[in-house]
């Protein structure tokens, strides 16, 4: 009797998530007819970036302060391979993603033994190293960055020059990235990650090689951050040093915390909030105040609603509608 009730409740929540995914996908499909597509594409890229970061922080419990390096690597490699080697966009994006994954593996190998603040500092140091490397090496174009990256033709068939086809390509990339994260979280692997985050010694004493699991999570996260960077470089036809700067690492932390760390939709909401604010404020008289306003919002978020926008909504729903 009780188990049936329980089962039906589990099914209900499953159906609810499925339904909300479907609604979101529909919204994503019609959105470019109502809102400027380039803005939406920027939003999706940052949302994917924040989701990738959330996999580390929200589910692995590891605060990486160097995710900008992966975003930038994805962008530069994609730009370079498309401009110099004449790759098609999907191959360029793939190359960027793979390079970021490789860099994630190296970062992870070096940083993962350490915990807490030490982990954050090592990732920050490594990403600063990468930043200065990109300032100096000729293939990135130094201060100028890579400009005029052609969007090219998808599979050599469909031109992505127009904003609408480009938008649907970005949406597809986002959906794939998001699906990878969703699957990772809801797999036995994801459960082990949660267990490690909660009680690492216990996970070890059950017989898990904790460092190996953290490393895999780190590589997945780095690869998806790279995917976001690669796609972004195609959208703006530009790969620049801003992506590699530590400001970007900080921004993605802000997005994730603001939206709700450890929730599946949180990073998307957080990225949407931050990107929208930046876009609207930078056109008005408050343009030079954007960092101050974002900082204020961050302070308010930490003081008043610590579990982020989505986290607070979930709490509210649980309290009142369960």
């Amino acid at each position: 009797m009780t188990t049936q009730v329980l089962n039906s409740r589990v099914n209900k929540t499953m159906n609810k998530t499925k339904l909300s995914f479907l609604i979101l996908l529909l919204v994503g499909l019609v959105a470019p007819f109502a809102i400027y597509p380039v803005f939406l594409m920027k939003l999706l890229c940052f949302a994917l970036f924040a989701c990738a970061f959330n996999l580390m922080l929200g589910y692995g419990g590891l605060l990486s302060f160097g995710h900008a390096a992966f975003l930038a690597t994805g962008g530069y490699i994609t730009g370079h391979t498309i401009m110099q080697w004449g790759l098609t966009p999907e191959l360029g994006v793939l190359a960027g993603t793979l390079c970021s994954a490789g860099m994630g593996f190296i970062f992870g190998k070096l940083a993962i033994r350490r915990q807490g603040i030490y982990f954050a500092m090592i990732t920050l140091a490594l990403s600063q190293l990468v930043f200065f490397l990109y300032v100096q090496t000729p293939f990135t174009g130094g201060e100028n960055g890579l400009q005029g990256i052609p969007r090219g033709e998808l599979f050599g068939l469909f031109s992505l020059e127009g904003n609408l086809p480009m938008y649907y390509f970005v949406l597809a990339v986002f959906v794939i990235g998001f699906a990878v994260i969703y699957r990772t979280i809801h797999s036995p692997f994801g459960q082990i990650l949660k267990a490690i985050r909660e009680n690492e010694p216990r996970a070890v004493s059950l017989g898990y090689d904790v460092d190996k699991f953290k490393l895999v999570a780190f590589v997945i996260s780095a690869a998806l951050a790279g995917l976001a960077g690669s796609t972004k470089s195609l959208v703006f036809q530009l790969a620049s040093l801003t992506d590699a700067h530590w400001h970007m690492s900080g921004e993605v932390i802000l997005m994730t915390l603001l939206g709700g760390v450890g929730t599946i939709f949180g990073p998307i909401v957080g990225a949407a909030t931050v990107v929208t604010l930046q876009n609207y404020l930078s056109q008005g008289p408050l343009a030079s105040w954007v960092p101050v306003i974002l900082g204020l919002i961050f302070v308010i978020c930490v003081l008043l609603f610590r579990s982020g926008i989505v986290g607070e909504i979930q709490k509210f729903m649980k309290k009142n509608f369960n």
Partner: protein
Amino acid sequence: MSSDMKKDIEQLRIADLHAFYGESHILHGIDMKVNRGELVTLLGRNGSGRSTTLKSIMNMVGKRTGSIMVNGNETVGMPAHQIPHLGVGFCPEERGIFASLNVEENLMLPPTVRSGGMTLDEIYEMFPNLYERRMSPGTRLSGGEQQMLAMARILRTGANLLLLDEITEGLAPVIVQTLGEVLLKLKDKGLTIVLVEQNFRFAAPLADRHYLMEHGSIVEEIASNELEEKMDLLNTYLGV
């Protein structure tokens, strides 16, 4: 598969074990031996080093020297995550239930370390409470249910050497009784159990042998048939 046949096979042998937490020297040369199918308790006051002995076997203390053989494998110097794969199941004092996973996910989390572990159905048969609550989050259970979950979790892995740390602590008498029955069932299955226990009256009828600990060393070994004559000694060591 009767347990009598295997009585003389050594499952765990600890020789001259010293353990340290940072600067402080906790265990001063422990020697003990547990045969397959035996149920052995570690008795002693708080802080006498009983839990540390179990943690040392799992390589969860700062530093350890000496020798710990599990099923004939030397484990000093072995990485902590490999030790469970020798067939050791550890149930820590604080239980270590994962709050973000539900009961069934908690049960399914540990990797299978050897064949012959209990299936999910067998576990639910042994602990009917867990079946009823299998979809609730791990830490929403009562203390007794959490303890059952912590034990059930290592039974599924097929571990044949169970290290149980204070499993009756703070539980209602009815649940303590149930846990006693569970331990007897496990013993009948031929599992080897090392039990750290505060509650002597719970442990006495179950155990084959007792090790008495004081200040980080073993001061006395008592077989269950010698209990009567050594009761005075026990009272001096355990008495408050």
